[in-house]
């Protein structure tokens, strides 16, 4: 047997100096030859003792048969590969791009103990792109079972639940508040990380399964959850973490200071980068400070670089504590984003016209570990300094969207505003499930998809079974 390559087959990508001049995707994807070579690195592990799945599958929130689809790629059976993936994952072109593989499937890869793990994410992306560029395979529609399910929110949790239930014969309707389906996939994740054409194609696939998607319906306002309950046999809430957090420091409402949500929504959903061809404007100065160290902060910083600006990431801990994926941090650095670590703003200073012109910051040092296990940043007395800045993007996290809980008094929530659920994602309200960021707070696409899948299994069990008792831990 030939010796296994130590490293993943490299994926071609746009060089940094080129890609900051366009809005196109950075990694360009594998060719079939590259994919087959990478697939041949897989050891085809079996489940470990006492486990149901091989390690990589255990590491996947939706338990895709990873060795199975990789074997198919290795043997050039690309159509089989995508069929195997889609059995468990309805949005592979998306997860093949934005999953934190290093903490999941690839983190569990046996090969990864001594070498680089198999490029599972890259292979998933290859299979999905291969299928999409050749026209999507539409699975046979199952016989309708006559039961109606409403899904609130068309983000990754909602779309996954919708697809899973449609495949089982349910009559599924998705309600979306915005004018385009996809949730965070369209308003939050940038074009250069997840091209909108791909989201569109995945949404079309879900429509092809018979799912109806109604845009412009703000549940809680246009219709209430209680009204939907009269019409549908089950409801899944996947409304996400739509409420931007601010620091509540002086000057935060000055012009030129955006929440990450506003900054990204203008650029991604509304295509402000193509103003005035598109009507929505965005105004970005010459020196941009992005506050925060998560993936959203990296997305904002990389967008600002593409608009030709000097960009700083301002983060109160060190790079090691940043919640962003390593890959995103690396790409931001390659693209010329500067990192101001152990630093946070304390106030913003405006000019006579009400625009931010400066930011006062304070320096931090790391103290004892806090509840999250990360070392707590401690402000250094007298370390305040002022820097010139004319645009700020506050990317310090989002809170759960309050629209549905506010208008559904019977629905129990936690003190953080998330919806309370039991282990099967059942809420305090009979026939209502919830998942994704409305339950988790501020999490990832794949965990939201995992919730969508889990809820769909529980919904199916409830609607197809005879036992209609509703027990949840919250009762």
């Amino acid at each position, binding site marked *: 047997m030939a010796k296994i390559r130590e490293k993943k087959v490299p994926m071609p990508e746009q060089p940094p100096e080129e890609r900051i001049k366009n809005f196109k995707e950075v990694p360009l994807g594998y060719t079939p030859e590259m994919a087959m070579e990478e697939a041949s690195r897989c050891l085809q592990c079996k489940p470990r003792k006492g486990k149901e799945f091989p390690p990589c599958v255990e590491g996947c929130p939706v338990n895709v048969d990873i060795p199975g689809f990789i074997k198919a790629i290795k043997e050039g059976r690309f159509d089989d590969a995508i069929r195997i993936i889609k059995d468990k994952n309805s949005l592979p072109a998306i997860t093949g791009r934005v999953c934190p593989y290093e903490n999941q499937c690839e983190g569990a890869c046996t090969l990864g103990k001594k070498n680089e793990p198999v490029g599972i994410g890259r292979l998933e992306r290859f299979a999905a792109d291969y299928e999409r560029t050749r026209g999507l395979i539409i699975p046979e529609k199952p016989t309708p079972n006559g039961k109606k399910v409403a899904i609130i929110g068309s983000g990754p949790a909602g779309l996954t639940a919708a697809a899973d239930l449609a495949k089982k014969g349910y009559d599924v309707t998705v309600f979306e*508040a*915005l*004018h385009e389906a996809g949730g965070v996939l369209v*308003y939050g994740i940038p074009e250069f990380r997840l091209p909108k054409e791909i989201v569109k194609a995945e949404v079309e696939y879900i429509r092809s399964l018979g799912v109806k998607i109604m*845009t*412009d*319906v*703000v549940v809680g*306002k*246009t*219709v209430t959850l209680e009204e939907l309950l009269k019409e549908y046999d089950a409801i899944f809430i996947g409304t996400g973490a*739509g*409420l*931007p957090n*601010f620091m*509540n420091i002086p000057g*935060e*409402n000055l*012009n030129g200071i*955006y*929440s990450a*949500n*506003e900054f990204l*929504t*203008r650029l991604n959903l*509304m*295509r402000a980068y193509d*103003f*005035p*061809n*598109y*009507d*929505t*404007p965005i*105004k970005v100065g010459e020196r941009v400070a992005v506050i925060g160290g998560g993936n959203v902060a990296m997305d904002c910083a990389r967008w600002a670089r593409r608009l030709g600006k000097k960009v700083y990431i301002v983060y109160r801990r060190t790079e090691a504590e940043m919640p962003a994926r390593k890959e995103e941090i690396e790409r931001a650095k390659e693209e010329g984003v500067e990192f101001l670590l152990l630093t946070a703003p304390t106030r913003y200073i405006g000019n006579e*016209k*009400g625009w931010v012109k400066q930011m006062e910051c304070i320096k931090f040092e790391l103290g004892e570990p806090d509840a999250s296990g990360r070392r707590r940043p401690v402000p250094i007395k007298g370390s305040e300094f002022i820097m010139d800045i004319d645009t700020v993007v506050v990317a310090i996290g989002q809170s759960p*969207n*309050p*629209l549905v809980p506010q208008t559904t008094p019977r629905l129990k929530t936690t003190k953080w505003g998330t919806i309370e659920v039991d282990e099967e994602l059942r809420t305090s309200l009979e026939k209502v499930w919830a998942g994704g960021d409305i339950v988790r707070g501020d999490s990832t696409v794949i965990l939201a998809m995992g919730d969508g899948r889990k809820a769909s299994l529980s919904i199916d069990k409830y609607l197809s079974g005879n036992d209609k008792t509703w027990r949840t831990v919250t009762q």
Partner: protein
Amino acid sequence: MYRIVKKEDLAPNIKKFEIYAPLIAKKAKPGQFVMIRIDEKGERIPLTLVDASPEKGTITIAVLEAGKTTKKLNSMKEGDCIANVAGPLGIPAEIAHYGRVACVGGGVGIACIYPEVKAFKKAGNYVVSILGARTKEGLILKNEIKEFSDELYVATDDGSEGFHGFVHLLLKKLIEEGKKFDLVVAVGPVPMMKAVAGTTKPHGIKTIVSLNPIMVDGTGMCGSCRVEVGGKTKFACVDGPEFDAHQIDFDLLMIRNKRFVEEECLALNEYDKSCACQR
């Protein structure tokens, strides 16, 4: 797609549209607004609901030509379709029996005050409507509002009809003449609402205004519409759009409303050029 069922000229630069949107029509309450995107490349703008008919399944909005989007919208015809209409958004006006209520409307804000005049009258209040515009042509919906008002007063900046001067000065005159109000509700341009708030504050009259900051999604997601009320940051789209006028930082609102002034001019100029070319 949302079809324009009826279009009417209210004033030379203000059009009234009845749009088929049955789900919204069923839920709409006075004080609420909708987010509109006219076409695939359009921006999302908030527009206050003027009326709604659950029977016909229509909602009514009034649009003042101010920038590209409103100009383009006002050029649309009956039978044309608007790409997206979402709502009804925001917290409805608190309609109750207060006693004597003054409803003050300025410019296109007169259209926005109309549903409140109706609702306050229905709730048993004595309603005094006070309308202001630049010229008498701008005194839109005067007769409709009169129908539901116990008293009606008008003001024009040029003196072409009624009181000669700003509408808050007319309100001031009425108060000083001894008219008592338990509540004042005002909708109009920000400087007008600020002036109304300044007029009622010394008399301790509870005053509510409807704010019109720049929005993107209109559902609490982006924070573009943040305003300061009583020193606290609020999102006009989900916490408002109506707030206690005496608590609002109007100067901040005026500054924030100018955030994209250059871009708005550019878009309008490009649009005017493209219209000229087509002719």
